């Protein structure tokens, strides 16, 4: 079989030309679409954070779920029913479990067993963002750790990276479990990871996150850390501030005020 180098180069050249036919045609024949115009720059300089005033929260009646219900309703979070497959963006855990590094044998009695609201901490240095193989989760300029449900391949590595357990996975099709669908926000398919997104679709319209707005005790304070006059900066400078697991270096942006 005499296959000379020349023949190979000829065939390789022809193959290359053949492969370039379709892309070439697309380039030549396309009507150029117009560029989307930039929105008013509401990103630059902002650093969104949330402060949860635990004392105010504990004033609410027992079993208050206003913030949780608000969030889960507007975001079409399904109510699966069994703990194994549950999806939650915001929920409560006991004080001892929220701040295990503060627990010793002689803690204050008044905090024992109290419910603490936990959600995605929207860390400044998020470990989950590092591990995603497709960049389906990334940190935006304004500090929100975003989630792109279109790109998630469902490997759950971000869940392995999150030390707070903030992320949930869709173990089956969520649609049958959605009580009341909200058309303003998409549902998700089975096989993708989801978490709190600081209501970024509401922030665009100038609204506060749903949980913040709904809380009757006004226990949730949301604001821009870069704005020295914001309410959140004020409360962080005046009261005793806790973060979850600060020693891990994730620099969480959800602060707990005692």
């Amino acid at each position, binding site marked *: 079989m005499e296959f000379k180098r020349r023949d190979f180069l000829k065939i390789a050249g022809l193959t290359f030309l053949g492969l370039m036919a379709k892309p070439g045609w697309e380039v030549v024949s396309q009507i150029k679409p117009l*560029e989307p115009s930039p929105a008013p720059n509401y990103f630059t300089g902002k650093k969104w954070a949330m402060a949860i005033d635990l004392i105010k929260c504990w004033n609410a009646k027992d079993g208050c779920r206003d913030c949780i219900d608000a969030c889960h309703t507007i975001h079409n979070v399904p109510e699966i029913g069994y703990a194994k497959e549950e999806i939650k963006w915001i929920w409560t855990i006991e004080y001892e479990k929220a701040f295990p590094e503060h627990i010793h044998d002689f803690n204050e009695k008044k905090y024992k067993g109290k419910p603490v609201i936990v959600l995605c901490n929207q860390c400044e240095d998020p470990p989950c963002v590092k591990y995603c193989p497709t960049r389906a989760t990334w940190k935006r300029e304004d500090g929100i750790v975003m989630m792109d449900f279109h790109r998630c391949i469902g490997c759950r590595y971000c869940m392995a990276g999150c030390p707070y357990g903030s992320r949930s996975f869709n173990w089956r099709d969520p*649609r049958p479990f959605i009580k009341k669908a909200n058309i303003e926000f998409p549902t998700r398919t089975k096989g993708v990871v989801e978490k709190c997104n600081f209501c970024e679709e509401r922030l665009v319209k100038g609204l506060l996150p749903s949980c913040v707005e709904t809380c009757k005790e006004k226990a949730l304070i949301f604001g821009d850390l870069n704005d020295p006059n914001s309410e959140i900066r004020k409360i962080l400078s005046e009261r005793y501030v806790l973060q979850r697991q600060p020693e891990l270096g994730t620099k969480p942006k959800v602060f707990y005020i005692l």
Partner: protein
Amino acid sequence: MRFYDAKKIITGLIIFVGLVTYPIWHNTVSGKNLYTPKLELPKDKKECIEPKDYIRVNHKSLLEDWRLSVVRNGIRIYQASNQKKYNMSLNKTCMECHKDKTKFCDQCHNYMGVTNKCWDCHIYPKQLEIGVK
């Protein structure tokens, strides 16, 4: 010259040709070729955000660009060729006029055999009435 196994060969050939030309005769036989897309156009609006010819060809890449822009870049305003500004939203812009996807989008998509995954997640207006499940 003898034609050995004539019966078997001819039967086999007929079956083979029948199977191979299935795409050609199936639609005629089953009546599907009588199907034409019946697009229910919006009653009040006369034009889409882009000229009909453009949007007919490019609505897929337009929506994909919108998706990229809104989800990954946070930019939500689209300036069309008629200098008007629109919200880059499948539901709020497109579905506002073309209310029911089964009477508009699906008509051509079903005819062309196009499947899209948009509606796996996004809820269209009529769906709220019939149930999201």
